[in-house]
């Protein structure tokens, strides 16, 4: 275990000053997520253009540094990506958080990779993995127009 790895500078920065923490104007998709065990809540808003590109993404919510940082980094990264790229990135991120040592995506620059990999420290803390993945599962629900609230207890 390594606390420094978990609470590194990027996480603390995004956790304390989350980017895109607002309700997007003119959003056309949204979904809510909830972690009933710790009370983390997230509401993701998306504006997807006709060419299936995310022109705006934001979130509202409250939670621990890990869940806030994860939502903040995720929303930063998804802007201007198309739906297919977003889905690939979500599955790449979730695989990395659970078992893969690295990200596989070719569509990320080094800076983006560093930001995402800053969350990899939660691997050592099984109880906290759900904090890191909540926003990502909620984004999937938003894209799929799922009406059900994402409940972290019902996910892998």
């Amino acid at each position, binding site marked *: *275990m390594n*606390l420094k790895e*978990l*609470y590194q*500078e990027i996480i*603390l920065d995004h956790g*304390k000053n989350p980017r895109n923490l607002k309700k997007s104007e003119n959003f056309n998709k949204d979904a809510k997520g909830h972690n009933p*065990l*710790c*009370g*983390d*809540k997230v509401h993701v808003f998306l504006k997807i253009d006709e060419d299936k590109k995310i022109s705006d993404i934001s979130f509202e919510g*409250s*939670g*621990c*540094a*890990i869940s806030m940082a994860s939502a903040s980094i995720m929303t930063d990264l998804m802007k201007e990506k198309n739906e297919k790229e977003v889905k690939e990135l979500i599955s790449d991120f979730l695989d990395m958080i659970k078992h893969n040592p690295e990200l596989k995506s070719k569509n990320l620059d080094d800076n983006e990779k560093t930001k995402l990999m800053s969350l990899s420290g939660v691997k050592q*803390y099984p*109880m*906290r993995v759900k*904090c890191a993945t909540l926003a990502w599962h909620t984004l999937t629900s938003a894209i799929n127009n799922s009406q059900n609230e994402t409940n972290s207890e019902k996910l892998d």
Partner: protein
Amino acid sequence: MMIENIKKQFPIFSNKVQNNDLVYLDSANSSQKPQVVVDRIYDFYTKEFSNVGRSVHYLAVAATNLYEETRTLMQKYINAKDPNEIVFTKGATEAINLVANTFGQKFLKEGDEILLTELEHHSNYVPWHYLRRSKGIQIKFAEINSDGEISLESIERQINRNTKMIAITHLSNVTGAILPIKEITQLAHSKNIPVLVDGCQGAPHLKLDMQDIGCDFYAISCHKMYGPTGLGILYAKKKWLEALPPYQGGGGMIKEVNKEGITFGDLPNKYEAGTMATAQVIAFGESIKFLNKIGIENIENHESELTKYGEEVLRRNNSVKLVGNPKNKGSVLSFTLDGIHPHDIATILDEDGVAIRAGHHCCQILHDKLGLPATARASLGVYNTKEDIDKLNESINKCKDIFSK
């Protein structure tokens, strides 16, 4: 009281937890187990095991006697009038479900009200909630004051002619408030309303006298009382156990069974259907003996001194905000830290071997009222020391360091 000698009786403290000495501050969640309790389970299974109350062979008779011995020990521990007023359950949750279910079935109708408080653990709310749907009852909540206490007046305000049961905690697992349960019972009885006390946090820490308190039901969690998991106790006045219908049907709780019908067994068998948690009951007898040996007054004094010390230390720490400030307080220290979420606190403390709980502690109604999504909670047991509190404070400072970067 030689607290170091007490700590030595708990084998968990002689092992390292992730290379740290364990600073266990999660006893409100579940307490650690003394060696005598662990040994008793081993001895029973290796030398004395048999099912109770059925066979006539030597082991069965001996096991039955041991099982009943715990009932009598418990009766004396809480000064109940009769050993048959002690019913073993799978936990305090089942004890409350038993009362809500059987009382609801027999005595409640549409429009009746159950009075709870905003301090209640989900296990003293959810069982009553079912009766909203099945019986059309209403649930009212007595409100806390700004110190996180429930006064007699706040209970009185919510009582009306529809109130059919008052179900309250003895000691809040979040604010630590100790409720005036004797006065509440007197008030309730003056209006012919029975009282159920959720004693999960009361029983391990406070001297109990059922005949003095006078409540109708008192639910106990044995694993919070230095005993095994999977075991709870329902104390209920005999008149209620006689009046209420059985909770579950099965072997052991019947008198006569034939194709036309069934007659139910006498107390306490009526409420103990199926094979019970025999080894746990027998081992729990050792927990009671352990508590008796130290003396509940000594435990009260030790924990009260430690709680005061904890409050002082945490109040001196600028960023810490204690949750609730009850005048009559049990050994629970719930707190928040400016700008740091309780789950981050718990993870950072864990790195130093300091085990606390973070979250809503199964009290979402209270957390909504307090406007807090979660709190961090350090809760004390008989084995805790001032050094444990100091270690907690040091680790809290470490959280502040990490988050100040």
